[in-house]
């Protein structure tokens, strides 16, 4: 059964809540702005609502259904204890502007999580308010700009490796910087020589992902950082791939000045079909003074308080405020629950198992699938492949869609851009060997069809709720709302 659109089954006179009837004659104080025309909304009763969304949900693929090897997205298991804790009324039913004496436990959560994020990264400070990874990047870049501005040193350029996630250049540009690409070496890492050559008084900093989007650890990161610092710049590290090294390496030891942490990646908060995320940013001593408001401090009596605009000196030369309130509390409680669950020993094991699983896939596939950096050494938490030798015009996209028919969510495709027809496979640590072996079997089968030129693959998927969708048509004549 196809599930109709809400607007095809809902009715304006139906509601799934029981509220008092509107007394049309009751006096109002709406200043003459009472709405007269219909809004155009429709309602369903509760049974219909539950069924509509339950049916819709079954058109989706999620981690709970199967292996989800989407590279750089870290689709690890979302523990249910996290969900339960986030729903405790003591966390879920408190207002961001409630008197601070009445929300000491909440402030402690923010403070404790921040402290442990600093511990795990070896950094002295953290900004908790960014709402997602890209927002965290923005936070880091703004701190860099504020730091330069504070010493009257206006710089214009941010260097970004060509393998970077699109948010990096977008963020730098949004913050008013000119973005310049740094090339990669043939082995898949930042070209240190090229980078050093470009450094100068106009370069505000670099944004480097480590482990990088080719799945490799940037071994020369410290050297790069030293060079950037020597040139008066700052080092932004994109922490999207922190899962590979959590508990094993502290970015602070590598010379990082700012790094965002995707709580919805490394710290297991759910992706939710596209958010909400959470992107706290750890900061070096150099950048810490510019951290955005608000932040949580503990006073001498052990009480927690928010530092906001009013705190004058205590704010430091903050670059301002990034969001109305204090950040993604719901994600903080989940991430804190996760950190407590895993502990120091568990988080180290997380990184090790994530890297082990990825290397296992890399080495189980490279005999039939081009692994451009397979010879560069072990990969970190994800394995990168290219589409070399596919026959009959078959592409990475076809392999991805073929995997859907095998019951899998595809890997990340066509990213990073430095590899032709890139396929980025990230198993995460929460997959069993059995699940990975089963995936490898299916992946090999599909790849062999691509190598063999199986035309049928061009029409895949066959067994999904929908066949390939016309994305071009959708963009040419956008239909973005129901009309009827």
């Amino acid at each position, binding site marked *: 059964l196809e599930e109709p659109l809400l607007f095809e089954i809902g009715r304006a006179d139906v509601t799934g809540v029981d509220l008092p009837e509107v007394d049309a004659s009751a006096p109002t104080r709406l200043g003459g702005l009472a709405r007269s025309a219909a809004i155009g909304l429709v309602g369903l009763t509760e049974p219909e609502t539950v069924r509509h969304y339950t049916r819709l949900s079954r058109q989706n693929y999620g981690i709970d259904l199967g292996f989800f090897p989407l590279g750089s997205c870290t689709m690890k298991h979302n523990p249910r204890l996290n969900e339960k804790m986030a729903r405790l009324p003591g*966390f879920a039913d408190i207002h961001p502007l409630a008197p601070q004496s009445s929300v000491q436990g909440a402030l402690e959560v923010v403070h404790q999580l921040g402290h442990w994020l600093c511990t795990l990264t070896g950094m002295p400070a953290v900004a908790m308010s960014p709402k997602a990874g890209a927002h965290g990047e923005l936070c880091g870049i703004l701190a860099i700009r504020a730091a330069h501005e504070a010493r009257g040193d206006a710089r214009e350029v941010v260097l970004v490796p060509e393998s970077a996630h699109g948010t990096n250049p977008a963020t730098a540009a949004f913050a008013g910087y000119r973005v310049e690409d740094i090339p990669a070496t043939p082995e898949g890492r930042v070209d240190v020589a090229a980078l050093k050559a470009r450094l100068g008084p106009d370069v505000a900093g670099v944004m480097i992902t480590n482990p990088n989007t080719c799945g490799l650890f940037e071994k020369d990161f410290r050297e790069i950082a030293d060079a950037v610092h020597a040139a008066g710049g700052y080092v932004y590290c994109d922490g999207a791939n922190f899962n590979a090294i959590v508990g094993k390496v502290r970015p602070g030891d590598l010379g990082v000045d700012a790094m965002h942490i995707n709580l919805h990646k490394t710290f297991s908060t759910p992706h939710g079909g596209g958010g909400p995320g959470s992107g706290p940013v750890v900061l070096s001593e150099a950048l810490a003074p510019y951290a955005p408001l608000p932040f949580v401090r503990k006073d001498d009596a052990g009480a927690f308080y928010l530092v906001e605009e009013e705190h004058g000196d205590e704010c430091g030369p903050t670059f301002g405020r990034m969001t109305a309130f204090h950040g993604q509390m719901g994600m903080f409680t989940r991430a804190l629950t996760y950190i407590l*669950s895993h502990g120091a020993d568990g988080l180290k094991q997380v990184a090790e198992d994530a*890297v082990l699983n990825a290397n296992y896939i890399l080495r189980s596939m490279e005999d039939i699938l081009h692994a451009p950096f397979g010879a560069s050494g072990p990969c970190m938490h994800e394995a990168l492949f290219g589409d070399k030798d596919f026959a009959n015009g078959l592409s990475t996209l076809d392999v991805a869609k073929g995997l859907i028919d095998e019951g899998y969510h595809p890997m990340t495709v066509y990213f990073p851009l430095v590899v032709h027809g890139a396929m980025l496979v990230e198993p995460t640590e929460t997959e069993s060997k059995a699940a990975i072996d089963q995936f490898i079997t299916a992946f090999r089968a599909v790849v062999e069809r691509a190598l063999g030129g199986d035309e049928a693959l061009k029409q895949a998927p066959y067994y999904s709720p929908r066949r390939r969708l016309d994305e071009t048509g959708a963009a040419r004549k956008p239909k*973005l709302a129901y009309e009827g």
Partner: protein
Amino acid sequence: MRYLPLTDTDRQAMLAKIGASAIDDLFVDVPEVARLDGPIQGLPMHASEMAVERHMKALAAKNLVAGDVPFFIGAGAYRHHVPASVDTIIQRGEFLTAYTPYQPEIAQGTLQMLFEFQTQVARLYGCAVANASLYDGSTACWEAVAMATRVTKRKRAVLSGALHPHYAQVVKTMAHFTGDEIADALPAITAEPDFDGLIARIDDQTACVVVQYPDILGRISDLTPLAEAAHAKGALLVVVNTEPVALGACRSPGEMGADIVVGEGQSLGVGLQFGGPYLGLFAVRDPKHVRQMPGRLCGETTDAEGKRGFVLTLSTREQHIRREKATSNICTNSGLCALAFSVHMTLLGETGLRQLAAENHRLACLAADRLARVPGVEVLNRAFFNEFTVMLGGKPARAIVRDLADRGVLGGVSLGRLYPGVEALEHGLLVAVTETTTEEDIERLAAELEAAIKETAQ
């Protein structure tokens, strides 16, 4: 460790396949100085569910739960009753553990929901098109300003003094770096907003004028003159709404000429959550502006067999395609909150939303009348929806709010907290009333407020 399926036997077999003798062989690229031996210092070791639960519950118990006391706090986040079925639905693994729907063949659940959500938001706002959500109302507000500068190719935004001060802070913070110019102001303590003054600030370099509706003091006024004035100067009107329930009772911003309508969607489905995650709503009245919108958009299309289906579309605006030329750097947004909002809105429907709005307004009127009878208290607003400002006759509102909290009543938000150091505002208190407020709660607030005022020095 309960989330890690590999056994030591598995690990050995896998290392063998890889050709490594130990796990650290896979970390050889990490410079030795940076490699940590043993578990990181400063964290506890792993713990059972039971132990973690105990720890988290102890923290939760240190907070005063809104639902346990008479509660009147608003100022951009409102406590509404969320039907139980909303949470059931958002906890389904197929929604909770899905990724952004980049593989539409196996993400139609999320995509169709987003298409329905966009339609709901657009209709609520009186607009043509809404996007698939942003982080929250304040970041949506900045995105609206940024979009207005792209559309008008001007760099100056005029903010109403009655825009939520935190929203204004966010806009100013961002504008500082983009080089845009922000003209802001403090709110005047008047029964109605000063639109004449605001209009006077619009000039032919103005990209947009940003006004909140209902505004930070809870006031509502016809925005039509403002829209006309802005349009006359070639500027856009950006309307910010922090209480979507208000639009069940009041005319929509789109109807009154707003070009971009943004807001906070937290009231429906999401809950208070100490400020996040929340839900940024973003819509435009004129479809020609669609390609300048930030954030994800879901569009209808067909599949290879001609069946209706949905995809993320117009992604050439976005960072993963356009990189430094993107309309915004946004990536992950608030998908699951959008689902919660949409489910709640579906349960309400036209009828339920109107009833909900009417009930909020009814109780707010009751509360305003009751508080007006408290000696020393004066209600500022002529018109309001479910939140209004009371002046405390020269008493400092911040101290009164703290005093009320000690008395077990969360009595509202003082303007002093929102505008610290602004003497003209320090006697104002914002009081929000929703369907969750009982008449007993109102009586209790009135009584405790009377007592608190008596006991507080000027």
